[in-house]
């Protein structure tokens, strides 16, 4: 079941086409990565899902029916350009945003306390936002995005501005939220986090959808169909890359027959980073293999 379906979305700003018939389906309970180089149209697509930008054509469906303002107001949305009231106290700020998401004051206080404890930032409650460092403000922003337990979260570049330690904290939280049943759409440039986090992706380049699907499928599809075998013989350890045969056992057998010790045999999966660069530099993705 898809939580979000974008059908043939078109959007142009004056002469400039931002999205050209883009169709994307986000399955429920998964982490969906929206990839693409700068200016590809990711943020525009996110804003269209959030009804901040009105598309020129196409439909956005939420659980199979046209998305409404009420649906949007429940989405946990963290925009790329983070923003908080600088002069407000951290606690007041978080309470305000949580209440705007429809939480009652008591629920908001309880929910926020939980998150503050989880992140170990209880003593920030009475600090002013302007006293926080960029990373700290990011954490607060993340909390305000998820505190109302939304079914769907849209995180635009969730890791930008975080140091590796905090990025890891956020990564774990995103996985935990997914495991608890939430759907997460995130846009990112960080391909490592895509491999680690995303179940499905869509790659947008130059306003067009280049590819969409499960991460594992895509990696397999774009691999050179090679396997890597590592073995030890009298001279020591060796690594060899061979084209994959339909039956891996044949390959293995030929090695075993040579009298070497096979240490490992694995399918060579291309890194998302390479696929990304390949697809993007290939232009509009016309040469996409079948």
């Amino acid at each position, binding site marked *: 079941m898809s939580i979000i379906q974008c059908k043939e979305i078109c959007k142009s700003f004056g002469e400039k086409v931002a999205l050209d018939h883009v169709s994307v389906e986000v399955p429920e309970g998964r982490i969906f990565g929206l990839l693409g180089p700068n200016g590809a149209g990711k943020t525009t697509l996110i804003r269209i899902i959030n009804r901040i930008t009105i598309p020129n054509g196409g439909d956005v469906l939420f659980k199979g029916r046209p998305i409404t303002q009420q649906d949007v107001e429940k989405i946990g949305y963290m925009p790329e350009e983070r923003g908080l009231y600088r002069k407000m106290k951290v606690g007041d700020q978080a309470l305000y945003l949580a209440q705007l998401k429809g939480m009652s004051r008591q629920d908001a206080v309880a929910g926020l306390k939980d998150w503050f404890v989880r992140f170990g930032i209880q003593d920030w409650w009475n600090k002013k936002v302007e006293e926080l460092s960029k990373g700290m403000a990011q954490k607060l922003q993340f909390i*305000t995005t998820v505190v109302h337990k939304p079914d769907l979260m849209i995180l635009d570049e969730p890791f930008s501005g975080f140091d590796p330690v905090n990025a890891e904290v956020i990564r774990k939280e995103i996985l935990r939220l997914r495991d608890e049943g939430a759907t997460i759409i995130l846009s990112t440039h960080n391909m490592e986090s895509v491999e680690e986090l995303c179940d499905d992706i869509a790659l947008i380049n130059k306003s067009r959808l280049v590819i969409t699907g499960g991460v594992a499928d895509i990696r397999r599809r774009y691999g050179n169909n090679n396997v890597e075998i590592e073995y030890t013989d009298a001279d020591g350890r060796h690594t060899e890359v061979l084209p994959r045969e339909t039956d891996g056992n044949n390959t293995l057998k030929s090695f075993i027959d040579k009298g070497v010790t096979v240490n490992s045999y694995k399918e060579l999966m291309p890194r998302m980073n390479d696929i990304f660069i390949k697809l993007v530099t290939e232009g509009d993705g016309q040469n996409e293999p079948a």
Partner: protein
Amino acid sequence: MNLHKIGVVISREYLTRVKKKSFLITTFVVPILFAALCILPAFLINNIKEKAQSVVVIDNSGIVLPYLEDSDAMDFTDCTGRDPEEVKQEVMDGKSDVMLLISAIDSTRSVSAQTFSRKPTGVDFSQNVSYKINRAVEDYRIKSYGIEGLETIMKDVKSNVSVKEFTLDDSGKATVSESGIYMILSMVLGMMIYMFIAMFGGSVMSSVIEEKSSRVVEVLVSSVKSLELMFGKIIGIALVALTQFALWILLTLVLVFGASTIFGLGDLLSSPEMTQMAQSGMSGVDMSSIQNSEMSVILTTLSNIPWGQLIVCFFVYFILGYLLYASMYAAIGSAVENEADAQQLQLPVTIPLMLAFFIVFFAMRNPESGIVWWGSMIPFTSPIVMLARIPYGVPGWEILVSVLVLLVTFIVMAWASAKIYKAGILMFGKKSTWSDLFKWLKQK
């Protein structure tokens, strides 16, 4: 519209402002200034009485002294014949405040006069003294013509004419009035409402700009409708304004009454003499009764001002005027990313506001002129101009028409502003112009 969410927005806008130090400071400092303005003149008048200047007089002419009568402000002592230097020394020592030295009558049958004092004597003193000396010299000269029955003639020709103003109400009943009071009141009201609209309207604009420049707006509009956000903000700030007024009025009253009790001014104001003064006519000829009658005119004038209407109108016009300008300010704020860019864009909004301010000056001088009448009807100037007219009395239907026109204009403007605001708050990077604003207005 989701009322719960508007409520959340309103309470944030309200609470963050009311909790600010600057709000507390303006709330408490302004009434102190008001109270000081109310009390100080009365306090001074009350205290000047007790400090009559002691004046020692050396009258070498022999004609002036009888004219120097003691009064509340001056206490004359005759020292004619003593050595001027010696008397001067007494002034130096502080035994008396002023030495008045009058020369002998010279060839032009006049005298010259000099004063010596440690501190400047003040305008009142010198006017008063020269008036007395001139009368002495004039009488001396008249006497020198040797006219028979002079005393009687002088008494007979003395006149004291002043213009007494009346205003006629609908029934033709005439009441004493003092146009000075109307002028001041009309000016003060016009200025106040101008100030408040500019201040709180501007505050709406900076708040919109703040949300935009801090980018918090994108999170907000994913949670609430932009319309809810805009009206929540406008209403929240209106409540701040009303809170501030209420506190100002309350604190000013407390301060004025408190100070009156402490300084005993209350007794003065309610004393029988004062009441009598207020009631007395203008038959008297001496100085003090002229003052009394002025006081009585002021009091009658004040009591004839339609205070109830004035207060109701003040709030109605403030609220509507504020709403109209606040929605325009919100639209402008939504189109820019910092205050500096707002300067040029807001010109079309500030110009009518300034215009209204200038029309108030016309209203003060001539409340019945055409420009003032139109100014009090045209919605962009009416909140300010009408308030300046009201002390002079305005027919009910004119107020009604003017309020209705203002209300309709506000509704139209709010609709337009909401459209501009909705498009504007998410426009980043490019400097917006008025033609952009019109484009957004036409957008679906």
